[in-house]
């Protein structure tokens, strides 16, 4: 069953997510219960639909608090979704549990942001990388062979296997974390800020490596990041996330060069360029990501939006396909055509 609304290539999609919701309860005080106060929830992911094709990278870009990390974790069933369904390689996975879910984990993996905290400091590299295989009961001979294969794939020397994580630099540790994700030969990997903890000279190496691995192994990636430059270089398509929802989805170049949502425009315009003749911030809007406990009524971006109208404060715009493959959740997406250069001078939308 395909979702009604899904910004995607529906044919041959490896992963299809339909109206995924993940709320976290906020624990109020003990007495709140007796006062009959309704429990509050953080709307971390609030109705996200997406599909990822085989061998595709979907970049999910957003600021802190946008819900992007929760989305990645929920898609892997590391968090139980509040509602919504997920289909992986044609199978409903949101209802799976126990052993079925465990078997599925061979096919879906994750690489975390911080290679200093995601590797057990007391385990040797071989044991770190072999752990997923061991969890599935692979025989020793297979383990040795696979560990060697992935070490080679991430360009770590063979003698790394008997060393400990502290003997490696940040970039090498992230290679170890990538090797661990790859050792079970997954089809889909969530990359959660894979280079944010690394030095810039090392970040470029890791990005090149991830792209090579994807090409060699035919993987699908969901790349979660706050860094617009990183998604630009890595992703086939981008989903821009704001306050628990996708506000814009489309091919990377199209979205970055002619955004059809004011938040995307703001995000792109805020990225500092390594060029002293092009200063950012002259037109930067004030304001911050709103509270996910009590999101604004109507469009969640309306308090910061320069074009906000009455309808924006009243009605929440749905994510709709405004051009083939281009999805925007703005009432006035059509008026934003003409590229980011035109938007600052755009008359109030709808006027």
């Amino acid at each position, binding site marked *: 069953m395909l979702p009604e609304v899904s910004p995607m290539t529906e044919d041959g999609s490896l992963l299809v997510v339909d109206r995924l919701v993940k709320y976290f309860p906020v624990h109020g005080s003990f007495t709140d219960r007796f006062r009959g106060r309704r429990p509050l929830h953080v709307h971390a992911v609030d109705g996200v639909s997406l599909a990822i094709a085989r061998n595709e990278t979907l970049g999910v870009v957003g600021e802190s608090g946008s819900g992007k990390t929760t989305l990645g974790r929920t898609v892997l069933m590391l968090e139980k979704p509040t509602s919504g369904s997920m289909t992986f390689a044609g199978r409903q996975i949101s209802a799976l549990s126990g052993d079925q879910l465990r078997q599925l984990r061979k096919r879906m993996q994750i690489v975390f942001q911080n290679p200093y905290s995601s590797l057990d400091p007391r385990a040797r590299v071989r044991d770190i990388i072999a752990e997923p295989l061991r969890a599935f009961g692979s025989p020793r001979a297979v383990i040795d062979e696979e560990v060697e294969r992935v070490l080679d794939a991430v360009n770590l020397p063979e003698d790394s296997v008997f060393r400990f994580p502290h003997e490696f630099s940040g970039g090498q540790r992230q290679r170890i974390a990538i090797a661990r994700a790859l050792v079970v030969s997954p089809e889909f990997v969530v990359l959660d800020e894979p280079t944010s903890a690394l030095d810039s000279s090392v970040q470029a190496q890791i990005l090149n490596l991830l792209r090579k691995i994807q090409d060699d192994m035919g993987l699908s990636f969901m790349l979660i990041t706050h860094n617009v430059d990183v998604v630009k270089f890595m992703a086939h398509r981008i989903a821009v996330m704001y306050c628990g929802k996708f506000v814009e989805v489309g091919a990377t170049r199209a979205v970055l060069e002619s955004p059809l949502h004011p938040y995307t425009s703001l995000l792109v315009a805020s990225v500092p360029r390594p060029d*002293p003749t092009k200063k950012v911030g002259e037109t930067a809007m004030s304001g911050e990501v709103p509270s996910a406990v009590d999101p604004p009524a109507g469009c969640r971006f309306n308090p910061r939006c320069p074009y906000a109208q009455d309808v924006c404060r009243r009605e929440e715009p749905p994510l709709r396909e405004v051009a083939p493959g281009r999805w925007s959740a703005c009432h006035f997406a059509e008026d934003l055509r003409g590229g980011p250069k035109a938007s600052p001078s755009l008359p109030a939308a709808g006027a």
Partner: protein
Amino acid sequence: MGEEERRPLLEVKGLTVTYRSAVKSIRALDGVSLTVDPSEIIAIVGESGSGKSTLGLSIINLLQKPPAVVDGGEVLFRGRDVTKLPEREMASVRGTSISMIFQDPLSSLDPVYTVGEQIAEAIEMRERRASTWNPGPFARRDPDLAPSGGGLGRVVGVRMPRGDRGRRVPRAHAEEVIEALRRVQIADPERVIDRYPHELSGGMAQRVMITNAMVQRPALLIADEPTSALDVTTQAQVLRLMREMRREIGSSILLVTHDLAVAAQVADRVVVMYAGETVEVAEVGRLFEAPLHPYTEGLLNSIPRKYREEGRLDAIPGDVPDLRSPPSGCRFHPRCPHAFERCAKERPVLVEPEPGRGAACFLRYPQ
């Protein structure tokens, strides 16, 4: 008079700082020199282990000693060497003359005082130094003594004249505090002054830190990765604020960052550091147009500016060196695509054929 104006505000000469431990010493800074002119914004760009933060801390004399030891060189602020100033005198320089903001604003704000109280304290410090001040019965004699002086005064809570340290912002300063917060685009400053730091978002907290620094109107602001913990839209606001601070107060700013793009946005001049050494200095336009040092060039190429379909990045191979055992010769030579025999044997010095423009590289300057 003219002579006076042309003198740099800050001169760092051959500064060498080592972190000593029983097992191993790490030379974090190795003969670093730089000058900062009045109202100039200088960016110190480097990766982890480059020594950029140590440099910032040495200038405001906040290095933890031990383990840090200043082995050589001097830091002249208005002609006086701050590394040799006694702590009591240094304390009077900090805040009003040199301020510093850090990457994580929440760990630099005092959690038990409201935003308004902290900014009012900064204003009071400024005024106390500008005019005569009656220190009250518990304070020490020196009217220049800063609250951060520590000692018994701090323990018994005599950080400020007691009367001014109520739960509220002193009325005399309330207006200035609110105005200052409005300047940094904090919405609803009348309410924000009563908030505690934990009630602020990261971006707001960093703007409060900047406000704190701004109201003291320091001659030099040292900003150590001020935007690294912030979202990109907030970063843009903070970068704009730093430019405004220079324009309106005339402060010089020493911006410490790992991000060349951030440096490009605000700096007049850039100093590129690698493994404790200065490898290149340049006026900002020339650095990005024509970098001289292969490391600077590599860093610029490492910024992903391409789309996926446009091919791979020209990454710098290898890793940032471990300062416990730095490479011989030029510290960048193991990663340098142009390295030749001499690079592994001799250390290149920073050559400046014209003042403020140069590099430490045998390829450019055979020396």
